[in-house]
């Protein structure tokens, strides 16, 4: 099969039929479920999921950014009330993050122009495999360590060293309970934006850097990340859409599932130990990375870099889809199981309190 011809073709939106509509809503639901459960945007499964359904990588990233930012602002409003949001840290990081988004979109379009959509899909998949493998393995090991020691939030030695760097201007971050040089969060924000524009997931850099470099508590880091995600998503969605890369049908269908899923996932969080959340998140990240890795030969074939048979080509595409959906369903079962256990314990405790009174 001559896949090289496809590589040169212009970017195009997928045909929507009943199966695709159901698949996107289900994907959105499970993505939202995971997002509510682990407190991330969920795009690390949504973008690969959309790509596995045949959406071009650049359209998947653009449509995902448009789906993420409205949800982020709702999260910011909720987390601010709880004191989990540092406005000053958010402002310091969101400005370079927006610059990172603009540069990231420029790079994506450059790659698309030079190597076509197969090259663009390959670039996005390689970044996904690299980032998901590193963050997934680290999260999984951290979860195992916390499960053994019983301590969930560990302090960072690096953050203590960074706080000692006294380069003007120093910024006092009240909610993050830290004072750092302004020059520390700026490059971290830029890297967050660059990654967000590449795979629609900036939090993989933003949250760990706020915890391990700036020294913010994990709940403040994840709350502040929502504000950064809103700023990046707003500018990113506008920029992508202005260039005609947002397929709003995908955005709307993903939103339809994820807005329900995110609320259900948040319930599951209440009934599991934090290390369990890390183990689930790490496992899903690794498997989402695997689902991207298995299709890389098909993109190399599209670019005429390697030759594979039609049978293997189709098998790899199907395998990618099956791995991702099986992972999401498995993760959904764990969350629903946690909810069921929680509901049972609430029923028992309320019966006990009635008997006591």
């Amino acid at each position, binding site marked *: 099969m001559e896949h090289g011809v496809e590589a040169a073709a212009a970017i195009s*939106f997928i*045909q*929507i*039929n*009943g199966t695709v509509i159901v698949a996107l809503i289900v994907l959105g639901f499970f993505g939202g479920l995971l997002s509510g459960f682990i407190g991330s945007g969920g795009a690390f499964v949504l973008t690969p999921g959309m790509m596995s359904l045949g959406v071009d990588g650049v359209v998947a990233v653009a449509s995902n950014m*448009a*789906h993420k*930012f*409205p*949800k982020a*602002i*709702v999260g910011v409003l909720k987390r601010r009330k709880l004191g989990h949001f540092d406005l000053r840290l958010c402002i310091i990081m969101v400005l370079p993050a927006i610059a990172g988004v603009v540069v990231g979109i420029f790079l994506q379009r450059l790659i698309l122009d030079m190597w076509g959509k197969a090259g663009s899909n390959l670039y996005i998949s390689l970044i996904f495999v690299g980032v998901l493998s590193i963050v997934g393995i680290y999260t999984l090991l951290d979860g195992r360590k916390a499960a053994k020691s019983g301590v969930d939030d560990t302090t960072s030695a690096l953050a203590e060293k960074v706080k000692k760097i006294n380069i003007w201007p120093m910024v006092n971050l009240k909610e993050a309970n830290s004072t750092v040089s302004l020059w520390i969060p700026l490059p971290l924000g830029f890297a967050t934006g660059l990654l967000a524009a590449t795979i629609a997931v900036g939090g993989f850099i933003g949250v760990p850097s706020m915890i391990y470099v700036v020294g913010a508590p994990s709940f403040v880091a994840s709350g502040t990340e929502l504000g950064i995600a809103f700023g990046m998503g*707003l500018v990113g*969605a*506008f*920029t992508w*859409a*202005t*260039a*005609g*890369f*947002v*397929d*709003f*049908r995908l*955005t*709307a269908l993903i*939103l*339809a599932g994820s*807005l*329900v899923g*995110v*609320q*259900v996932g*948040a*319930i599951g*969080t*209440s*009934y599991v130990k934090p290390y369990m959340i890390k183990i689930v998140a790490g496992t899903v990240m690794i498997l989402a990375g695997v689902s991207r890795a298995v299709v890389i030969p098909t993109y190399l074939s599209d670019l005429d870099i390697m030759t594979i048979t039609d049978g293997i080509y189709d098998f790899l595409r199907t395998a990618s889809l099956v791995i991702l959906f099986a992972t999401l369903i498995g993760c959904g079962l764990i969350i629903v199981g946690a*909810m069921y256990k*929680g*509901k049972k314990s*609430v029923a028992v*405790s309320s019966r006990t309190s009635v008997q006591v009174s």
Partner: protein
Amino acid sequence: MHNTKNLSPDVLKLSLWAVLTACLYGGFFLFIGPIFGFFTGDNVCDGVGLFMAVDRMLWIFSNGNVCSGVGVVVVALVFSFIHGSFASHLLDAVGLKALIKSGD
């Protein structure tokens, strides 16, 4: 005649958000495309199917100009607000939302 006083404010709120959400998705996927097509001269109302209507909608958001950019941002916010409110009220109505509070 039904006595509306028997309906709790929560049920009324849920019904309101459900109707708004249905109108939003229905309007978005079924009507916006054909209406836009009418103004651009495409006779999309002549036997248009659901998925054709969905495809027509792309004209608005994928033109690749400032209108597409503003349109995507505004409509995404509207979708998120209306459907998000519906989802929140729905979970409240089926008793799942209370689990978050009790779990904490």
